[in-house]
């Protein structure tokens, strides 16, 4: 049973990263390979604010989130907007380049060492039937799900959120109706970075922060988004949780060396059976 | 030539086509008309194998071609053009036309790489030139594709389809987006093709165009055949009028 609890913990992080992927995918049609780097930056920012500048937590978190929005917007302005021929493959590669730059800068700024962020709430172990979770893990799950819910509310209720959804459905139509698509895309990167930084902040006490962390978490988030069906909001969340549980499950029943192979094998099988992911809709092909 | 028997298809409860039956006679021009959403393009896609019909069958030259994959249907001798242009901008006009040749002739890749069949490729060049002359696009052959007007691109697609020597040519809204001058050229071209023995089946909105060309007209509405016959017969059919008037009202 333990694998379910630990799976949900890591899965909720994958879910947040997958949401970041989905938001950018829906507004630009590309996969942002730097999404994982946002998570790493989140950890680094909170470390800097808390441990180096000694800012109290209730101030540090909003500052980090604000910085996240700025980073996301700059990301769009510097990398995405400038691309001369913004076709899919160029945009994807530019995000790979951006990820390399961010990782390189993080190494220069924060060094190669793993950094430790102390827990935000007192450490305790909470027992569940057949396993246990730490208070920090519970915080991760709670914050992730809360973030996902508030984001879905934002998309459903606010007018800005509605403009976002209009962009998902039809960019041309949205721009005709007065939605500034460029503006929305910029905000999409802002929100994606925001989500990444939230993930980075909540996980930092459990997983520590190293400048190379972004690669794996990005990859897993991508896998989660695909598993759930690219562009599908709750699909991303479900994909993340499922991936986390798969990983824990395989680690607990198989020789653990093979666990990653089996997690990916499951994703492959899902794709073979449902080429658009578990909850993805087949796009009507315009013939 | 082409026989549609009781073809039906549903999309998530919506009946897009319901028991559609009609014939496309040999060496004729048949037009499929009907208001938007009547299921014309759906039928085209079923014929060419992109959609699988739920019931019914399609016969081509007395061969059952129902639910064959698209490339097999092409091999039987059915070529088509598209509503949305499918030309490759980075390739030249003759290069774009190659698509019609490749699928038809299926030349040997190895021979082509080692340049062992140059006489064949010379004949291909000739065929392409001939076809460009036929469709009137030869003077554009050295221009970039993205500099060409829409009408030329449509002819390019037509030329590509003709290159495969089809028995049946499906045209998806050939006149859409063309000016009157271009339409006239097109009418001339389609007539020429018919005289060469190619059966033509088209989806078209432009009634002038249909009236000038079509030997037979089939009218679809809400997925059903509401009328078939010559243009004159159709024109006075009350259901057709209702369907179109209803359409214009909306």
């Amino acid at each position: 049973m333990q694998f379910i609890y630990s799976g949900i913990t890591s899965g909720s992080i994958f879910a947040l990263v997958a949401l970041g992927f989905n938001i950018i995918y829906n507004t630009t049609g590309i996969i942002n390979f730097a999404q994982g780097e946002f998570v790493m930056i989140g950890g680094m920012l909170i470390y800097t604010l808390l441990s180096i500048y000694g800012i109290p937590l209730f101030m540090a978190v909003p500052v980090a989130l604000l910085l996240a929005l700025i980073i996301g917007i700059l990301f769009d302005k510097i990398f995405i907007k400038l691309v001369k021929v913004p076709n899919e493959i160029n945009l994807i590669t530019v995000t790979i380049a951006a990820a390399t730059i961010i990782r390189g800068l993080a190494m220069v700024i924060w060094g190669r060492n793993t950094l430790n962020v102390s827990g935000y709430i007192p450490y305790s172990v909470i027992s569940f039937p057949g396993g246990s979770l730490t208070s920090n893990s519970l915080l991760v799950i709670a914050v992730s799900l809360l973030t996902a819910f508030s984001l879905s509310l934002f998309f459903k209720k606010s007018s800005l959120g509605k403009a976002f959804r209009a962009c998902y459905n039809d960019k041309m139509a949205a721009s005709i109706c007065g939605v500034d698509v460029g503006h929305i895309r910029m905000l999409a990167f802002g929100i994606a970075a925001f989500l990444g930084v939230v993930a980075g902040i909540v996980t930092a006490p459990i997983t520590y922060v190293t400048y190379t962390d972004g690669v794996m978490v990005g990859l897993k988030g991508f896998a989660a988004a695909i598993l759930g069906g690219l562009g599908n909001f709750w699909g991303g969340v479900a994909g993340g949780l499922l991936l986390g549980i798969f990983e824990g499950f395989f680690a607990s029943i198989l020789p653990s060396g093979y666990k990653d192979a089996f997690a990916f094998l499951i994703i492959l099988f899902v794709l073979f059976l449902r080429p658009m992911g578990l909850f993805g809709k087949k796009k009507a092909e315009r013939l | 030539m082409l026989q549609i028997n009781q073809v039906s298809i549903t999309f998530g409860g919506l009946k897009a086509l319901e028991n559609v039956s009609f014939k496309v006679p040999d060496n004729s021009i048949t037009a499929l008309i009907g208001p938007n959403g009547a299921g014309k393009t759906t039928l085209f896609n079923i014929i060419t194998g992109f959609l699988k019909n739920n019931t019914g069958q399609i016969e081509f030259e007395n061969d059952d071609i129902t639910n064959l994959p698209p490339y097999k249907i092409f091999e039987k001798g059915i070529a088509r053009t598209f509503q949305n242009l499918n030309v490759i901008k980075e390739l030249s006009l003759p290069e774009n036309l190659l698509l019609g040749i490749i699928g038809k002739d299926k030349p040997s890749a190895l021979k082509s790489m080692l340049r062992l069949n140059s006489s064949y490729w010379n004949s291909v060049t000739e065929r392409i030139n001939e076809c460009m002359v036929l469709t009137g696009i030869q003077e554009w052959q050295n221009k970039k594709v993205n500099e060409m007007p829409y009408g030329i691109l449509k002819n390019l697609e037509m030329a590509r389809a003709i290159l495969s020597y089809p028995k049946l040519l499906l045209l998806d809204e050939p006149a859409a987006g063309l000016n009157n001058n271009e339409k006239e050229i097109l009418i001339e071209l389609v007539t020429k093709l018919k005289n060469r023995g190619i059966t033509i089946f088209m989806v078209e909105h432009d009634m002038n165009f249909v009236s000038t060309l079509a030997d037979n007209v089939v009218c679809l509405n809400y997925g059903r055949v509401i009328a078939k016959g010559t243009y004159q017969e159709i024109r006075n059919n009350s259901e057709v009028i209702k369907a179109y008037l209803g359409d214009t009202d909306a």
Partner: protein
Amino acid sequence: MKKLLLIGMLLIFATGSSFAEYRLGALFSTTGPASFLGMPEKQTLEMLVEKTNKNGGINGEKIELFMYDTRGVDAEARKKFIRLVKRDNVNAVIGPTRSGSTLAIKDLAEKFQVPLLSCASSDKIINPLNKYVFKVAPSDKHAVRKIYFYLKTKGMENIAILTAQNGFGDSGRDALLSEAEKMGLNIVADEKFRDNDRDMTSQLTKISERNPDAVICWGVGPAPAIVAKNFKQLQIEAELIMSHGVASKKFIELAGDAAEGIILPAGRLLVAEKLPDSSKFKSMLVDYKNEYESTFGESVSTFGGHAYDAFMIIKKALLTAGKDKEKLIKSMEEITDYIGTYGIFNFSKKDHNGLDKDAFILIEIRNGDWELLES
């Protein structure tokens, strides 16, 4: 066009070598997953070379250091080794950090006839013996034996192992399995984790179901700290033992309370001040430690010690033999009783490591610091 330009540039670079000084090459993995082994090695070597040059060099000649990052990629180590030998014309090479990278260049060392002093631990580096390849890091089996002797005296027989899926974990696992057989211990669970795994509870749950007396975790980087935390979270009743891969203050900082009571084999350097005054290692270790910590403002790590030993050995050999590579090898093989950070080195023609199991001592983490478990 660009290719021609490139070749032109390569040619300009190719002709820029001179032969005035002792030329020392070094390959460390300063980026990539093994970076926190490679960094202290790099810094130590830089510090020592600078100091030596300040004090007049070796035999009056300065040392020029050529150092490259292998990024933990074996193919990169190979490339950079050829660069050191063929472009920089070095007399000897220290490194690489990782076993895999060392094995990747083992045959090149022989081909180019350049002495190589590896800082990695795998036994395969010196076995089969290659005339030009030396190893200053103690073998994994020495560390494993030290742990197993300890477990035996405590009467523990059922052991679970949890190893990293990298070269370090892999060669550790080999040693753990083979030595367990020799010493009659039962391996009841054999699990693995990846360097970037951030949750090990699944593996640990599986391990705890087998009721081992002790769990041995073999890895480097932040992952073992997570193992320690998860171990505590699951309240497993067994002794947790780590490898020398965590022998840096960073580990205690990361694992926090969860580090308490963990036992690990490590070099004496970690507890330099706590060694009895009678220990012949003490003064030299304390000196190195103080110097390193004052220069770089961070705690010393035993991995830096490898670079220290390697440099001292090569320096000794250069002093007596000069630059001639054959003489250099011979003189290194003759080094005995050199007191290094990891023990007393006794090289010979047949032993290119020169250390035994006493290279390691067992250390326990108590109150956030290293304590000597036995001397």
